[in-house]
């Protein structure tokens, strides 16, 4: 158990902009890598592939908005699944999302240092000259690896010190990135975009159904990261009020940017050119723009480096807060739940799971396709986790209709008859559609992603083994949910969040429930 002096609470430091940027930091970087990969697969239908994935993402976003505003605690999807489906599924969801976060740290640290390497030739340094052969591993780039490890170390340090610092870094860097992206999109559309090229490519370069499915499953990668807002909701001021706004804004922003970049790219270049540059597609797009074209490449490299750096930072934050939540609920050893007495941060989880990301980065550098290896597993964790979140949302509507929902997914069917002593339940039709959509994409991922379909489930199984051993040693039932007083927990959460109106509403709903139960008895 955590010592009393160590057990603390996470501070509510994150503002509206901070909450938005935690999500944007994670999702905003994805388009920088996804555009080239999707163009290579979906060909002329690249904007359509983004739109299809965007619809699924929209539904995921609405589900997260409802759950994160109703249950504003650290843990995100793992917590929602724990409440809806119990300990084992809560842990499985947490393990899947943890895979994503650790990959988020390593993948974007690799990518960020890759973008910064763009400037090395100007200093007379050539990155390829640092590639060496170590035993059977050929082309291991020691400088790039060292840069990656240095970035992870830097991010660990700022998250260790406290969220106020790292949140501010996110906020400042995010503004720079958004302004840069807006400049590229506006200049591109006004001065260089050719609508005929878009139409020609859609008409004559449409892919086969199999390739399109592969492309749309890759496109979902560009939308991974919404979970971060939920993760930081326990540290957000007035989360039930702010989180719905920041979540919906993030969903719309990312959709707008993803569609804008894909339509712009297809109106500037043939899909083959974008597909041939999976590492820097946005820079290739920017190069084609008049006026800013001369400086577009370095500017895009700088923005790319910045935005993927904050994405990596978001991964450190989310991984540590997720494991903090899991240990609090006895899904991982309580050792992880210790909060630093001075900085009020879950410092042990920050160090341990950033360490996992370091191992992933080192192993990835031993393969010929470091980024490809990491990216292959990225979609598995997200889609698997999202699938469980949709199920949890539906189950929680029945199990816990009393918790006030400041935001509710639209299109519901009302069930139950209050005149018979029952509670009315709003059955979420969109959640069912979202479940089917995410399920389809998970199926595509398993079908088409060679590394993801093996490494993803393997990670979950290994984590499940760790869970089993921990629960047995701690004398806790491995396969049964522990008894928990969710009502009291919800009261404390709302009181702590200063959401007094919701607290009063919750108390009234519980009083009605007690009165009904009394009448029935």
């Amino acid at each position, binding site marked *: 158990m955590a010592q009393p002096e160590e057990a603390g609470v996470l501070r509510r430091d994150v503002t509206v902009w901070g909450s938005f940027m935690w999500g944007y930091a994670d999702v905003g970087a994805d388009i920088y890598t996804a555009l080239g990969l999707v163009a290579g697969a979906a060909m002329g239908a690249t904007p359509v592939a983004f739109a299809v994935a965007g619809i699924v993402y929209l539904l995921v976003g609405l589900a997260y908005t409802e759950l994160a505003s109703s249950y504003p605690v650290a843990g995100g999807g793992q917590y929602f699944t724990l409440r809806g489906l119990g300990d084992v599924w809560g842990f499985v969801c947490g393990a899947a999302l943890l895979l994503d976060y650790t990959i988020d740290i390593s993948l974007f640290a690799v990518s960020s240092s890759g973008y910064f390497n763009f400037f090395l030739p100007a200093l007379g340094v050539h990155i390829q000259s640092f590639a060496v052969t170590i035993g059977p591993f050929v082309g291991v780039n020691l400088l790039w690896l060292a840069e990656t490890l240095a970035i992870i170390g830097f991010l660990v340090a700022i998250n260790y010190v406290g969220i106020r610092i790292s949140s501010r870094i996110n906020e400042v860097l995010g503004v720079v990135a958004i302004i840069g992206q807006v400049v590229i999109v506006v200049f591109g559309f*006004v001065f260089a975009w050719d609508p005929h090229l878009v139409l020609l490519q859609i008409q004559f370069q449409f892919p086969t159904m199999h390739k399109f499915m592969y492309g749309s499953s890759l496109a979902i990668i560009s939308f991974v990261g919404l979970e971060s807002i939920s993760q930081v909701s326990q540290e957000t001021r007035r989360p039930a009020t702010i989180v719905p706004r920041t979540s919906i804004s993030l969903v*719309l922003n990312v959709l*707008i940017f993803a569609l804008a970049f894909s339509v712009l790219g297809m109106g500037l270049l043939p899909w083959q050119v974008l597909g041939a540059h999976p590492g820097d597609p946005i820079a290739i797009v920017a190069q084609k723009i008049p006026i800013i074209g001369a400086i577009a490449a370095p500017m895009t490299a700088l923005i790319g480096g910045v935005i993927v750096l904050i994405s990596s930072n978001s991964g450190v934050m989310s991984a540590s807060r997720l494991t903090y939540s899991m240990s609090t609920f006895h899904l991982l050893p309580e050792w992880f739940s210790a909060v630093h007495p001075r900085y009020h941060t879950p410092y042990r989880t920050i160090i341990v799971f950033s360490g996992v990301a370091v191992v992933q980065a080192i192993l990835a550098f031993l393969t010929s396709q470091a980024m490809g290896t990491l990216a292959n597993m990225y979609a598995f964790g997200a889609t698997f986790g999202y699938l469980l979140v949709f199920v949890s949302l539906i189950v929680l509507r029945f199990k816990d209709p009393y918790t006030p929902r400041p935001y509710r997914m639209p299109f519901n069917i009302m069930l139950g008859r209050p005149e018979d002593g029952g509670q009315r339940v709003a059955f979420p039709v969109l959640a069912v559609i979202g479940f089917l959509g995410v399920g389809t994409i998970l199926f595509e991922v398993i079908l088409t992603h060679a590394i993801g379909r093996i490494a993803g489930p393997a990670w979950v199984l290994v984590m499940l083994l760790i869970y089993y051993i921990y629960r047995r040693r701690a004398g806790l039932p491995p396969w049964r949910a522990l008894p928990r007083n969710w009502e009291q927990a919800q009261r404390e959460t709302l009181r702590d969040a200063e959401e007094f109106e919701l607290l009063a509403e919750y108390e009234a709903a519980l009083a009605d429930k007690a009165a009904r139960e009394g009448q029935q008895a």
Partner: protein
Amino acid sequence: MPLHVGLLGSVISVVFVLLLALVFRWMFRVPRQLPYEVAQIRRTVNQLRTVVVPVVRALSSERAVELACRLAQPQQAKIVLVHVVEVPLSLPLDAAMPLQRAAGDEAIAVGVTICETHELASDGVTIPARSAWEGILRVARERHADLIVLGLDAKMRRPGEELSRNVAQVVRRASCEVLVDRPAAAVMEHVQPAS
């Protein structure tokens, strides 16, 4: 090289920037935070189950019953109409006071009619007490009232007093919420304070 400005591209750019601006504008317009006390009031009005209304033969009582009914109607709360027969200390508490009781029954009957107009359930209670405020508080306590609605009768005030003694005591001592209804100034002009 001459710059070419595309019309459709420009329109898309404007739409793109406008959409982003609208989304951010909406995101930053966060509603004001309600303090705990205010939030409680908003919720308790919706959660009223039992409302106690002291009644006498006066327009102020009818106003109070009408107000209580309007507050109670959305959630079909119960209205308890109370008439307190003030028994002087020179008499035993169970002394028969037929005139006062008859006046009370009359006031309660008027209140019941108002409640029926709003299709609300009501109870009439006539109780003896040494002072009206004691009787009101006793009924409120026994019926687990969520709210007491008091009609302010200008005739009952003494010169220099803002509230009558009974109203002041109920406001001070009630454990539930208390609402005092004072008519608008134009209505008050027709009613002169007692001298």
